[in-house]
């Protein structure tokens, strides 16, 4: 006895009400318009007409269109709003980078292209998640090896020893390791097993966090620790252990505050940067002044003076955007990350199986926490940590890691849509 067909007509009626004509194409064109207007404006910032920005802008736009077409062609159905959000963030990022330093922007674009290739690869692997999961142990070993190796051969930069140089370019392995941690967690938390079996992923995560702390990359350590807790909590619902973990983390934070002078320094500078203006407070003070100098609509693209802030192209890119585009734009940018989070979570909820659901959750959480921590640090809500603003900050490893995350998220989205379609096909 099948369910009566009267129900079907009811649902069809209501669904029609919900249905809305939305054109992904149209929105993409508007995003590209934004980008081209920006580069167009930059093209005569030097007095005479300079075609380079325009050409750069055209290349960027063409790249986005190409990606869009290819994704539609290969995967047919993917999460379009997430795609558009990512495109906007990338576009705004490249525009701002170009405005500050065209060389950085070109390097960033190159990294983006590599990232795009990897993105498509990752999208494709989702179908074979069973095979991927067999690689979990090698991934664990590999990550630990890389992080441990950093202790020895790592190059120090900005107070943290988390860079390696391969073939002339410097990489930040922690960016990739964080994805590995999420992957490992999702794999183990998939099955309903006893806590004992979870010892492997949890101690893996703890080891990575510990190594990062030793290498003084506190931002990444905090990020991975929080993400682990969140994924664990979502997967098990075990509030007790999660709170215990948070508590342990807090204790660790307090301990590091008492033990390490550089942690103390960060907290002091956070509380009153003006007191140490001549040394450590300089960056934060100039950042705040830059944000305040923007006004509601900004000083205007190219009219700000953000170059005096150290790390204006990486950590402080948000202050640059606030100065040139305004506070309203700053708030809107935060909202774009909110959209990213919503899309990521929707993808997680629609995932085909539990592993993919947790993996999507973990990846989205990474981006969420990362953007919150860095924006919070720049506006002095929390102490400043050295992590990047996803998709926007300059940084090869950061860009590639973000594209990989995009790849996985879109892959899971495409996969679940396909699966659903097939399931309906059977019925």
């Amino acid at each position: 006895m099948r369910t009566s067909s009267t129900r079907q007509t009811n649902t069809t009626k209501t669904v029609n009400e919900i249905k809305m004509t939305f054109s992904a194409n149209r929105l993409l064109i508007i995003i590209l318009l934004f980008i081209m207007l920006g580069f167009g404006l930059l093209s005569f910032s030097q007095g005479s007409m300079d075609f380079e920005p325009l050409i750069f802008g055209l290349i960027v736009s063409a790249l986005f269109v190409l990606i869009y077409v290819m994704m539609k062609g290969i995967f047919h159905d993917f999460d379009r709003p997430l795609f558009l959000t990512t495109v906007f963030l990338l576009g705004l990022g490249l525009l701002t980078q170009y405005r500050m330093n065209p060389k950085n922007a070109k390097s960033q674009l190159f990294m983006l292209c590599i990232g795009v290739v990897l993105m498509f690869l990752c999208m494709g692997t989702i179908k074979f998640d069973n095979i991927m999961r067999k690689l979990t142990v090698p991934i664990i070993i590999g990550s630990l090896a890389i992080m441990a190796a950093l202790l020895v051969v790592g190059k120090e930069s900005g107070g943290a020893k988390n860079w390696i140089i391969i073939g002339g370019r410097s990489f930040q392995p922690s960016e990739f390791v964080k994805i590995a941690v999420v992957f490992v967690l999702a794999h183990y938390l998939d099955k309903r097993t006893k806590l004992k079996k979870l010892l492997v992923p949890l101690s893996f995560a703890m080891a990575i966090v510990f190594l990062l702390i030793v290498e003084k990359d506190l931002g990444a350590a905090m990020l991975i620790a929080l993400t682990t807790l969140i994924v664990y909590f979502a997967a098990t619902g075990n509030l007790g252990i999660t709170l215990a973990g948070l508590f342990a983390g807090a204790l660790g934070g307090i301990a590091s505050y008492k033990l390490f002078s550089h942690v103390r320094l960060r907290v002091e500078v956070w509380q009153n940067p003006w007191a140490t203006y001549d040394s450590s407070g300089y960056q934060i003070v100039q950042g705040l002044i830059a944000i305040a100098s923007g006004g509601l609509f900004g000083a205007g693209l190219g009219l700000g003076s953000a170059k005096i802030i150290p790390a204006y192209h990486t950590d402080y890119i948000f202050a640059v955007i606030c100065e040139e585009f305004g506070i309203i734009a700053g708030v809107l940018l935060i909202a774009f990350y909110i959209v990213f989070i919503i899309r990521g979570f929707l993808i997680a909820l629609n995932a085909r199986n539990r592993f993919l659901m947790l993996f999507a959750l973990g990846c989205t959480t990474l981006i969420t926490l990362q953007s919150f921590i860095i924006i919070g640090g720049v506006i002095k809500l929390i102490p400043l940590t050295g992590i990047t603003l996803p998709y926007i900050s300059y940084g090869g490893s950061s860009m590639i890691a973000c594209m990989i995350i995009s790849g996985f998220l879109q892959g899971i989205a495409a996969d679940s849509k396909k699966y659903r379609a097939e399931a309906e096909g059977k019925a």
Partner: protein
Amino acid sequence: MEQAYTIAATLMRYVFVALMAYILIRLVIISIREWSSRRFWEKQLEGKAFAQLEVIEPYSKRGALYDVSHKTTIGRNRACDIQIRTRSIAKKHAIFFVRDTLYITAYEPEKHQIYVNDSPIGRQDARLFDGDTIKIGRVTLKVHIIEDEELYDEELFDDDDFIEYGSGDIDEDEFDETDEYDQDGE
């Protein structure tokens, strides 16, 4: 002319913010609508396929599926929701109902027994789990429960498969229509 650039950049500020706001609002509206349509679907599915009974015996009816997501009576009588015409079943034999999960109870426990997984349930309300077999007279039914993950610590289940909701009862067209955007962007 530097002056010209300053003026142009000053004017463009509003354009940039307006475009940003427009793009954002469109994306937010889509996400909200997708979210609410998703909840709508979840509610639909709750009603539709929370639990099913699959007939094992008699052989002639093997494979038939019955929806038991709501209060369902089973018996020989025509008035019952699930009517099974064999002698071994009473006129009104059992009721399936849903409290927090699926339960079965007998109408007249002294006269007609119900066996869940081969043990009699007596006069209690017996909780049913996915995979349980119910014997009513000579009819054997298997219980399928389709729902989300159980709490991690409970080791009640060991299914490897993530059972997709809506297997079997959803119209394909309906799913296409909730997909907000045209495949070809028109």
